[in-house]
């Protein structure tokens, strides 16, 4: 075994792979650009005022753009979900509760995360029951009816813990980071995310309008969860 490779494998995190897009930095650049003399004092004050607004606007823009485009490869630190009982081989039994951690809906503004969520949604067979949002074995996800809540935390919990009426628990099976990505995608199905963050069509058969064209649904608590049929 080559020792170099061992080093590589255990090398510390190499930091973010994106070249980073820190609003602070942009701010600094702009401030510098405006640091030249501006003539009279009055106009200087006005300039500073408008400069502040410019900085503010730029920061907002930068934040929006950066957050949307960030490729956060490193993900969040894996949470303590790894202490799952190793005997649980399928998830049809509800899993143990998992705290969703301090970050709630970290991918709500992130197009890359949503897109990853969409890929995982299909690959992890979420689509097997919920299809492309219309439902079938599981309830629809593209409508405004939510049996177990529509907030990112609710959806995260639903995926992690499962729900009694057939929703398997995926806690420990899917990394929390990926669950958050799936969560963001699920919310995009009914237009709960910004359109410029939601995904376009897949290179597959088109069976529904693309998520970025989804009308924003106003989530309502579903009156009749499937389990209500049981007395």
């Amino acid at each position: 075994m080559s020792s170099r490779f061992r080093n590589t494998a255990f090398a510390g995190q190499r930091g973010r792979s994106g070249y980073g897009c820190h609003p602070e930095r942009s701010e600094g650049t702009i401030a510098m650009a405006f640091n030249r003399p501006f003539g009279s004092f009055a106009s200087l004050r006005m300039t500073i005022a408008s400069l502040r607004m410019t900085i503010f606007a730029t920061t907002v823009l930068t934040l929006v753009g950066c957050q949307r485009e960030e490729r956060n490869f490193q993900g969040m630190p894996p949470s303590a979900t790894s202490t799952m009982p190793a005997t649980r081989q399928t998830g049809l039994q509800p899993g143990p509760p998992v705290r969703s951690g301090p970050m709630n809906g970290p991918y709500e503004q992130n197009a890359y995360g949503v897109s990853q969520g969409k890929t995982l949604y299909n690959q992890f067979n979420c689509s097997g029951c919920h299809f492309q949002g219309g439902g079938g074995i599981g309830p629809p996800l593209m409508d405004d009816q939510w049996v177990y809540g529509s907030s990112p935390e609710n959806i995260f919990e639903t995926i992690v813990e499962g729900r009694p009426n057939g929703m398997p628990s995926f806690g420990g099976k899917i990394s929390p980071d990926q669950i958050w990505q799936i969560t963001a995608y699920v919310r995009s199905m009914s237009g709960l995310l910004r359109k410029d963050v939601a995904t376009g069509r897949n290179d597959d058969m088109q069976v529904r309008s693309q998520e970025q064209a989804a009308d924003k649904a106003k989530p309502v608590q579903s009156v009749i969860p499937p389990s209500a049929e049981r007395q």
Partner: protein
Amino acid sequence: MTASGMLSLIQQSHSVLNPSSPQARLIDRLWDAMYLVSVIVFLLVVAALLWGTFRRRGPEAPETDPGRERSLTTAVSIATALTVLILFGFLIYDVAVGRQLTRGFGKEALQIRVIGHQWWWEVQYRDSIPKNWATTANEIHIPAGRPVALELLSNDVIHSFWPPTISQKRDLIPGKDNSLWLQADTPGVYRGQCAEYCGNQHAKMGFLVIADRPDSFASWLARQRDTALTPTTALTRRGQEVFLASTCVMCHAISGTPAGSRIGPDLTHLASRQTIAAGTLPNTRGNLAGWIVNPQSIKPGTRMPPNQLDPNDLQALLAYLESLK
């Protein structure tokens, strides 16, 4: 073979100009010819340019002199005619080589299907008996001296299959079935890499073509057809439990177990492979552990998530994975 030994072998055999197959040799010869002609012509042209620039000039006027213009015309015409001739020669040679490369090798060829994924290679050995199909990843074993027909597919983006030492490249294009003939003269390890930009980890989408002696290839293939070995020790049994209960099972398949997902490489015979992470790291316990715990530090953007496992579970998992010969 030790990891470092393997890598030095790769180093030697990772070149277009060191061909180890009939196809690559044909192309190498074509290159030799073109190179030779080009160098000669280049030297001639540069010599003409330098001579034209620095030649001693008489006191003659720069005005156009009809006689000199005529001789210039002749010179330019001859040069042009030579250019045309050389190009025509190239063309004939090219087409001849092209025809030889696309010639079919008949039924005796081994059929292998290679599917490009972001960012690894799925390899399927096909057989008329479905039971004998075998799936592996990132390492293509072939019998040395026997033609191999590769079927090249992709279901995500365009990739390109390129082991320079033994073959030209061919793209794997969604919606298009491509094929390629391959043959390695001598047993050896030939490295290749994806040659079409395919996203974040295009740079580390490598693979090995491993040419075996026919008999060792046959035994290798027979082993690949088997289902995974059942864990025998408590540690490996625990490792299998960890595998089936953790994130692993969502993406990877190990035949003979309930793990049957095709998102990531098939791990049925993981321990029989020389590298992991698509030809990126030698398959050692340390690398495997590093890869499982934090793949994103090795291949940022790869689809495998980081996994924080209990140290004992990790050791058990590693023991299990290393038992998958």
